[in-house]
């Protein structure tokens, strides 16, 4: 088991390296350059600009830039921002906790809401509860987050004054953004859990459990749900990518710290070291979480454990 995890991790490293290459290439072909984003070109002479560009090393040929870049990646050297020379790693480190908190809280909300609605909906299949639960889930999928976020701010901060609109310290500031982001995930999880539950409820062993005289509650939650969790957990692994991406918008709307905030700016400013750092980081997180998901399978589902060992 431990071996399997190590192996998975090592093979993931390849994926992470691959994604850093991808990032480099994508950014390389991006038009515009970092220098133009640092200055007001109407006030600076072309020579000065060329000079600055040279200092930053963005005027060298592709291959040369790539090898330097890749060398740094291998050395785990995150480098400095081209725009303001700020070291990237500490920058990510300061932003990361807030993003982590946000995605974690949002995942939690997704999972709780998704599970509750999904289970209700499966148990009361085709009854009004089911239809309502599915609609709520779909609503989560179909509202642009920047819009639902602003609506939440207006309702809960401005009119009701219950929760802060902005900030990234304290649980109160986490509520609105996490709900906004969580609703998105919840929508997907509801669908997933509902289908999985329906499938499990059709399995023969459910009849066995009932035939043993078990309480309906324990049939549903102890047995059926645990079986249905597997696809839901998989979903969560995939959703995490979406959530990380969702932070770009959410963190802007709620003015939170977070890597979503830096990445959008950095991409547009072609601030390669920052973009690379963030993507590398989120790739690592993505890989780690999916690893975690795989490990948690083994806890939920012994069948998987056997294949791995």
């Amino acid at each position, binding site marked *: 088991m431990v*071996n*399997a995890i*190590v*192996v998975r991790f090592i*093979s993931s490293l390849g994926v992470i390296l691959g994604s850093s290459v991808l990032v480099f290439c994508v950014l390389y072909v991006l038009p515009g350059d970092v220098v133009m984003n640092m200055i007001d070109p109407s006030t600076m002479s072309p020579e000065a600009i060329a000079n600055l560009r040279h200092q930053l090393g963005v005027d060298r040929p592709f291959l040369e830039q790539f090898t330097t870049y890749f060398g740094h990646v291998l050395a785990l050297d995150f480098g400095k921002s081209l725009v303001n020379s700020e070291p990237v790693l500490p920058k990510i480190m300061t932003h990361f906790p807030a993003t982590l908190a946000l995605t974690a809280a949002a995942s939690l909300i997704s999972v709780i809401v998704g599970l509750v609605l999904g289970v209700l909906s499966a148990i009361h299949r085709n009854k009004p509860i089911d239809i309502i639960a599915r609609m709520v889930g779909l609503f989560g999928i179909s509202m642009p987050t920047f819009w639902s976020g602003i609506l939440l701010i207006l309702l809960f901060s401005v009119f009701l004054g219950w929760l802060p609109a902005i900030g990234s310290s304290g649980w109160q500031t986490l509520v609105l953004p996490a709900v906004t982001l969580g609703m998105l995930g919840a929508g997907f999880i509801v669908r997933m859990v509902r289908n999985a539950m329906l499938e499990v409820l059709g*399995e*023969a*062993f*459910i*009849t*066995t*459990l*009932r*035939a*043993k*005289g*078990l*309480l309906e509650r324990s049939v549903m939650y102890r*047995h059926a749900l*645990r*079986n249905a969790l597997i696809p839901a957990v998989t979903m969560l692994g995939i959703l995490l990518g979406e959530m990380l991406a969702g932070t770009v918008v959410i963190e802007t709307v709620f003015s939170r710290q977070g890597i979503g905030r830096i990445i959008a700016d950095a991409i547009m400013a072609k601030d390669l070291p920052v973009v690379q750092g963030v993507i590398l980081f989120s790739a690592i997180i993505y890989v780690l979480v999916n690893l975690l998901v795989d490990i948690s399978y083994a806890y*939920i*589902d*012994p*069948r998987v454990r*056997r*294949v*791995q*060992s």
Partner: protein
Amino acid sequence: MSALLSVDQLGVEFAVNRNVMQAVSDISFSIQAGEIVCLVGESGSGKSVTSKAIMRLIEHENGTITSGTIKLGDVDVTTLPQQELRSLRGKRIAMVFQEPMAAFDPVFTIGSQITETIRRHDRRITAREAEEEAARLLQRVGIPEPKLRLKQYPGELSGGMLQRAMIAMALSGKPELLIADEPTTALDVTIQAQILQLLHELRSEFNMSILLITHDLGVAAEMADRIIVMYAGQIVEESAAVDLFTQPRHPYTLGLLRSITTLDSDRSQPLYAIPGSIPGMNNLPSGCRFHPRCAYATELCTREAPALEEKGGRQSACWYADQLPELRDTGVSELVSGVEVRERPVLDEDNSKQEAVSLIELRHVTKHYPLKSSFLSRDRKWIQAVDDVSFTIRKGETFGLVGESGSGKSTLGRLLLHLEKPTSGTVLFENQDLGTLSGSMLRQQRKDMQMIFQDPHGSVDPRWKVGDIIGEPFAVHGGRKGKEKRESVETLLRLVGLDPKAYDRYPHEFSGGQRQRIGIARAIALGPKFLLADEAVSALDVSVQAQIINLLQELRKQLDLTMLFIGHGLHVVRYVSDRIGVMYLGKLIEIAPSEQLFRHPAHPYTRALVASIPVPDPLRQHSFQAIEGEIPSPANPPSGCRFRTRCPAATVRCAAEEPQFREVGQEHFVACHDPYF
């Protein structure tokens, strides 16, 4: 003596897409304490529904009990509040299901699932005590190392073991009534014998009543005190086992009994088959539900349904119950009038032996599958699915292949058709090495070798029309198109006994037996020389089985086919095959002419196999000659003779040395150091 369970006028309905469907109606029967009652009948006849209704489990599947009462002792189960119902389930009535693998929750250990049941019904028991109790129960049902097994997950045990564990779990509440719904259907014959033996013992030990549901009359004959026959949601006959087998009082029972292929079935005669198929529950015929298939039906039968009436301690629902002939008196010809089967030719045995040329020859064919392994572990494990098998199939003969699940029969079949490449060894078809053929040549060659699959549902594309499915070979081999194709397909449909109108319909609109006919029509479309039938009738009901076998025999004669017939219903294989090969764990261990193999099995395994077959004759008191133990894993087979771990006659030599295949009689080969002979 008052009955332990009495069911009276039970009717069950299901809500299906806002329609109601009456699944069973007017079900009345009772079970005495300590009695084994068998519920028999073909697929869809309502056996499971009846059994689930007894515990009111159908309520969870959109079903409702619409009429009648179910009484367990003095308790009226039909009106019991949920709370009390739950404490009755698993405590006074317990249940065992067909697929042991599917009946356990895969994500909990066996132990936790058993202790859960124990503690559900007796809150005072501590977790520890429950665990000890569970271990005791496992011990009782014959599972070695029970403590260890408790910690294992369902997926880690074999089917036979799981079924034992299931029985242990059912026993945990010390039930008065055990309902077993096809508890052995998914198991191999040798394991089936073990389980049936166990049930017998348990009955006498605990004085339990058992309601055993089966479609295998052999099983019923061996187990039952009393037998209830169901047809299309109703009971058609009920009587003591012996009476039922000797003097059936319903034409359906009579038909069922006659459809069974036994060791005594005359290979030169076509099998008896009840014509037609079971009606769907939503288009039942008027009057007696069996009348469209009944040779004795009269106008009365089409009008009015006969009630289940008691006569001389047995019940039957037939207007003419008394006039039915004795089973032993009936000539076949009288009964088969409804079926279109021609006589099967008597094989000219001398001829086939001397002159027959080989059509297919296997030389040291081996197939190893890699076992999924982690990246790091260097040594790859292999499943030895087929190991060094050589034999020949002669032109015109039917070669039977038997063996328990996982012994490599299907794999061998696939290798033979070159649907997979063997790991080593060669397959010759008409003396041509299939392994050397190019892709397109091989595809050409496929015209001559066709296959019929076990699963009539899975083997046809659900999105294709029947006509296109059967016509696919024409399309593939650039043959007939358009009208010509349609005509050919319609001819084929007629040939396999289907309505040509089926052309434009979809597979799901057909019953299992009909779908199998579709599969057969496709297989013979191009007039192949060789036909592989891999468990082609295993999934079908007895009455349909007989129809399909007759059809195959008929086609074989007409089209001059050579066949490889894989099956686990040994009587059926005996009936169709000229010679039979027996496989065990990837090895071919015995080949003999069909009669010879059954009369004088030379290998201990073959012998055990033959002995394990339940015989549908309650008079022939059976001593379960079950061989002990489980089939070892093909990834890690025993050294020497692979059967030695279960062989009653194993010696030291068997472990050390692999037995060679040798001839022990005319055409009779066996791989055993000291065969019975």
